[in-house]
């Protein structure tokens, strides 16, 4: 149980909102991406002003996905390349 960790990446508007491009979190076997978003939104209310998308290990994922040890999460706004 101990030492499960997940890396969370931020880009663009979400990086500005949390003031960081990468954070690490301890997780347990029930932690979801959405749980981390709620946690982060409490510390950084600007984050909650955006509609957020989630990727787990470089693939789009549902925010309810349960995370596992070593996962790389990314939290970002709707993409605007092109």
């Amino acid at each position, binding site marked *: 149980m101990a030492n499960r960790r997940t890396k969370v990446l931020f*880009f663009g*508007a979400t990086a500005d909102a949390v003031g960081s491009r990468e954070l690490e979190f301890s997780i347990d076997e029930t932690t979801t991406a959405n749980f981390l978003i709620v946690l982060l939104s409490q510390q950084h209310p600007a984050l909650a002003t955006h509609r957020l998308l989630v990727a787990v290990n470089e*693939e789009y994922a549902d925010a309810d996905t349960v995370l596992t040890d070593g996962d790389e999460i990314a939290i*970002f706004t*709707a993409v*605007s*390349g*092109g």
Partner: protein
Amino acid sequence: MSDADFTELTTEPIDITSVARRVVPPECGATVTLDGYARRLTKDKQTGETRETDHLVYEAYEPMAIKEMQKLVEEVKAEFEISNVGIVHRLGKLEIGETSVVISVASPHRRAAFAACEWLIKELKRTVPIWKKEVYADGEVWIEGEASEPPA
């Protein structure tokens, strides 16, 4: 993806000609190329006001962006009768008028190349994790896409 296809991110200026040329196989006679570029005037979607941009900054979740572009190439080649596809997206700071993205499609039949290129830019704007920041004289804003739910 075949060896002749490519998906790239670059912080260097993009030359449209060389992208268009790289997708060309010997049996094809035409390529269709979409190029987007940093524009000076943009319209605010909420207010309808026109704003003047000083420069742009593009940022990507690079490994995922490459993966998503490669998926688009796989999909478009399964769907359309085309030969080769090249996608190059610029990152970092862009001055007004500089090319932000080039998508070139070579095909034995023009119609398929037009259709495939149009599909690729639509999907790239929807799924590839790249973000654009517009920098004005008096501020800046990260543009958020129109997707109302995560790309499938």
